[in-house]
């Protein structure tokens, strides 16, 4: 699929932008802090309805005059063409910053509205309509950083592919917040633990499908990643990818985490996962009350890379980590296309500068097969002249876009 047109209003440093967006590779060139990444952030928001970097969504709304212009409305509007459809679709996200009570000149409350083809929809109904794959700089962080980053990555990819994933995740989080609040109360003031019955059941009900989807996705990725990684390393190294669910329905109480196997977990029906997870939550109530928090569940999941059987995060070199993440991103593109029947739009933020010549050539060959690729760079000289000639170049300067050249093979 590809974007035909993108309009932004009061989004980050874009007061106003309205551009037709070409097929093929689009190079966004500009110095730092001119809004290159903001553009990718806006586009990826349409795929995941979450920012990949803002702490609060209200920070996405251009807002520099306290007391004036409140409420403030940020807007992302895109027309995009999906494969096999006659007409383009139109997706609009309104980020409405409102005062949170009297005297809030900072407009701290954020309300979101989503419109599909002009009709207001629930966020979960608009999920999966537009798909994108995002390549971020400092890609080795996905391997080395805390599990939270890998969970966020899983959530952003999986919610685009499994239509009910985002809804289950939201419900799981709501139930988790309430269960944890109750555990804290029980820890501090005591009370009837039977109040946990409902929250244990809700956690199991929404957590089990999350575990099942993550297990399925990682099992499928692992099969794909061997090929992609072999190709990148010329068959020299074997990359494994394993899911580490914080609660494993088959290994409850077992310490042999090594026995975990992605394929085995995909054979377990979701009802059985829910049943086992529920039983585990009930059994560990005492421990949970003592700690005042929920100690097991998808909110503590992780996945890990192994290169030639060694944990990459511990024993890998920077180069090996980069190759592994690159392999994973290629798998993500491939997998998303297989599952949805559509090629995702690719968003690459300053990514090529990190790669050596060989990996860069490999990635370039891969991405040009997509219908649309957005690439940011500070230095257009870093690209081969042929590649630049075939791309459309936009120069970005303080939130203003000036098209410099159109791509060579425009259709």
């Amino acid at each position, binding site marked *: 699929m590809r974007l035909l047109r993108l309009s932004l209003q009061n989004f980050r440093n874009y007061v106003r932008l309205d551009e037709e967006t070409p097929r093929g590779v689009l190079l966004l060139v500009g110095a730092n802090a001119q809004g290159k990444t903001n553009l990718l952030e806006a586009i990826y928001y349409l795929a995941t309805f979450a920012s990949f970097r803002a702490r609060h969504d209200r920070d996405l709304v251009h807002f520099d005059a306290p007391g004036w212009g409140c409420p403030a409305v940020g807007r992302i509007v895109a027309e995009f063409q999906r494969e096999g459809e006659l007409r383009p679709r139109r997706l609009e996200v309104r980020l409405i910053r409102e005062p949170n*009570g009297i005297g809030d000149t900072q407009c701290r409350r954020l309300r979101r509205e989503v419109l599909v083809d002009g009709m207001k929809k629930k966020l979960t109904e608009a999920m999966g309509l537009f798909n994108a794959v995002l390549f971020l700089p400092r890609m080795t962080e996905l391997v080395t950083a805390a599990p939270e980053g890998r969970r966020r990555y899983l959530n952003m990819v999986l919610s685009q592919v499994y239509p009910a994933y985002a809804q289950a995740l939201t419900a799981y989080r709501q139930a988790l*917040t*309430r269960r944890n*609040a109750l555990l804290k109360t029980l820890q501090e003031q005591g009370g009837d633990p039977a*109040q946990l*019955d409902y*929250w244990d059941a809700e956690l199991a009900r929404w957590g089990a499908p999350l575990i099942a989807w993550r297990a399925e996705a990682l099992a499928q990725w692992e099969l794909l990643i061997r090929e992609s990684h072999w190709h990148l390393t010329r068959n020299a190294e074997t990359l494994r990818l394993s899911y580490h669910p914080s609660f494993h329905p088959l290994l409850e109480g077992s310490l042999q985490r090594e026995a975990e196997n992605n394929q085995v977990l995909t054979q377990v029906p979701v009802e059985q996962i829910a049943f086992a997870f529920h039983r585990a939550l009930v059994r560990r109530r005492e421990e949970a009350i003592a700690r005042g928090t929920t100690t097991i569940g998808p909110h503590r999941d992780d996945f890990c890379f192994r290169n030639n059987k060694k944990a990459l995060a511990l024993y890998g070199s920077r180069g090996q980590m980069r190759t592994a993440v690159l392999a994973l991103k290629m798998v993500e593109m491939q997998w998303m296309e297989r599952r949805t029947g559509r090629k995702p739009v690719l968003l690459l933020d300053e990514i090529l500068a990190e790669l050596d010549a060989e990996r860069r050539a490999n990635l370039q060959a891969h991405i040009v097969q997509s219908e649309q690729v957005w690439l940011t760079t500070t230095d257009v000289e870093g690209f081969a002249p042929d590649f630049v000639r075939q791309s459309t170049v936009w120069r970005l300067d303080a939130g203003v876009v000036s098209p410099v050249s159109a791509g060579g093979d425009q259709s």
Partner: protein
Amino acid sequence: MSLPEPIQRAIEAFAALPGIGPKSASRLTFYLLREQSAALRDTLAEAIRGLNDVAYCQQCFNFTEAGQPLCPVCRDPHRDDGLICVVEEPLDVEAIERTGVYRGQYHVLHGALSPIEGIGPDDLKIRELLARVQAGRVHEVIIATNPSMEGDATAMYLHRLLAPLGIKVTRLARGLPVGGDLEYADQNTLRGALVERKEM
């Protein structure tokens, strides 16, 4: 702000109400300041003062007038005192009364179990409900808490307490809205309707 203090005070008082933002609060205040609104001001002041005289029914904890220990529903000899409908708020009683099909009594919990707001069983009229049921006569309790996470949690908790008492405990069915289209129903509603389907 350079407005006279009484005006500021009124705006702040209105803005303290749920669902009223600063803009609406100012609009209401300035509406009341018009010359034609003098009578309305007096009526409102009197009405608000009158709220101080409202009390709780000693049986169902709905509102009742001062000097009346029981509310009109509890006083009504034609209503079935073996059937109790448990709701979160007094307004829920009004909603069910409007349907015109319910002939039993009520029990108002004054809230729902809410871990986030720190509302536990002791903060609701749950002990009073158990006492009513244990006093005999009651054969069925209908739980009509809201179809929210908190409402469901409260329903489940009540069910656990009431079931051992040997009475029938039911919950309002969650169905599809009348005039709705199946294909547009959200997943939760549809799931609820499917799970709580009934024989024809």
